[in-house]
């Protein structure tokens, strides 16, 4: 696929533009989502679901070890 076609593909993803007034009116909600979802990574994973959810936790633990 040439770069032009790829750029068009990406541009299609941005077809729905956000009105500035809507962004301003909902700034609080957008911050809640952005900051709140980032915090969700810190939720304690119940032991029984760990095998399913633990990948990012393992990754974080390993990174921590490396930096030490």
């Amino acid at each position, binding site marked *: 696929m040439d770069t032009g076609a790829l750029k068009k593909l990406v541009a299609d993803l941005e077809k*729905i533009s*956000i009105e500035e007034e809507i962004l301003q009116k909902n700034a609080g909600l957008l911050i*809640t989502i952005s900051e*709140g979802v980032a915090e*969700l990574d810190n*939720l*304690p994973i119940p032991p029984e*679901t760990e095998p399913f*959810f633990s990948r990012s936790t393992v990754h974080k633990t390993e990174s921590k070890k490396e930096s030490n």
Partner: protein
Amino acid sequence: MTTISELAFEPLTSLAQGFAHHDFEPEDVLDSVVDNIHRKEKALHSFLYLVDEKSLRSEAQSASYKIRQGSAKKLAGLPFAVKDNTDVAGLPCTGGSKILRDNVPLKDAHSVSRMRKEGAIILGKTNLDEMAAFGIATNNPHYGRTFNPWDLTRIPGGSSGGSAAAVSAGEAVASTGTDTGGSVRIPASFCNLVGLKPTFGRVGRSGTISMCWSLDHFGFLTRTVRDAAFLLEIASGPDPHDSATIGSPEAASFIFQREPTLRGMKVGVFSNPISPSSDGVNGVFNKAIGKFSELGASTIDLALPDVDSMTPTIFAIALPEVAAYHEEWYKTKKDLYGEVLRGYVQLGHTVLATQYLKAQRAKTIILERVIQRLRDCDVLLVPTAPAIAPKLDQDTIQIGGRDYPAFQVLTENTYPFNLLGLPTMSIPAGFSDGMPVGLQIIATHWREDLIFKAGDAFQQVTDHHRRRPEIPA
């Protein structure tokens, strides 16, 4: 002896019994309901569409005949309202949207089909916020607003506000609703009704317009807990076109005690809800807790885990699902959207796929942890809404000297249970400043029986649900 004019305010279960004992006939109930529609609908605007009276009378006569023959089914001759996001064959289904203003479905939604198979009469379609999305006022930008029968200067709650106003004013004996963040329970609370949001996947949603498929629940607005159970018995079960219902028990049957007692029941009082409640609501809530103790239940304070994580989680799921559902319409018919829904569709496009997926993962983790905590009680109590119904254009609500945005604060006690899919019911708990206050009863998945037991015992020893609004002529 109930007079004809009072029949519209009788519970479904009493009406069905009255038919069976030949105390009155379906035509009498229809007369009572239609009389209320004639007198009150202009002030309330509960309905977007009403079936013509001739057809309704013909259905009532047919039900009377079947009752006399002994071949009538459970809902024979009972007149219901249906929220206008749910298909009824041959009637318009607009979703409160201009996009669907000419939409007339050819078949009933799964839930309506189950009700009609049991003989229900459908009176018409009720008003809602546009596409039932993010509304608590039932202030529809295309079809107008619905008013609260208890005070016409206040909102009825939303998005099932038309359904709630209709039942509260005796314009229908019960109604359907949908609930994605509180849209059955908040209007029930504001209009002094029972509002049931069953376990996620208990009642099929095919033929109902979606808002957010992983949070949408089909529910009912009734006068009594027994009526809500009666309707759930009929509607519960797998829907071949809604995969969420695969595990739904078919034809559930709920048994009620003759004597009201909750001896042996453990009632948790949700001690760390997201929002504080107003003094008026707290007063009613504390009195209600006292009633549960009088009924023999033991009460304990119960804090739920991860309450702070629930708001970002639900919005990171709800917004992209709204945007995805509306994407095709929005691209071609943007101008037909009202301002509020247009805004939320746009906002849905700001949430990243990774944020959506993290929220879905968090939902599972939060659910696991909440369920563990709920093992400490049979049911959990919290006010349905932290304040009474606000005035029509009131944007903020003051609680404890602080102003909160109305939409935010009024949904904070309800949406956690959409996120978690837990069964929840709002029941009339009392009045503050002359306005109804609802009490929410929550249980773990599929345990509507515990909610019904607690709610029915409460209704047997209180009479809040028997009060009726007086609407000025």
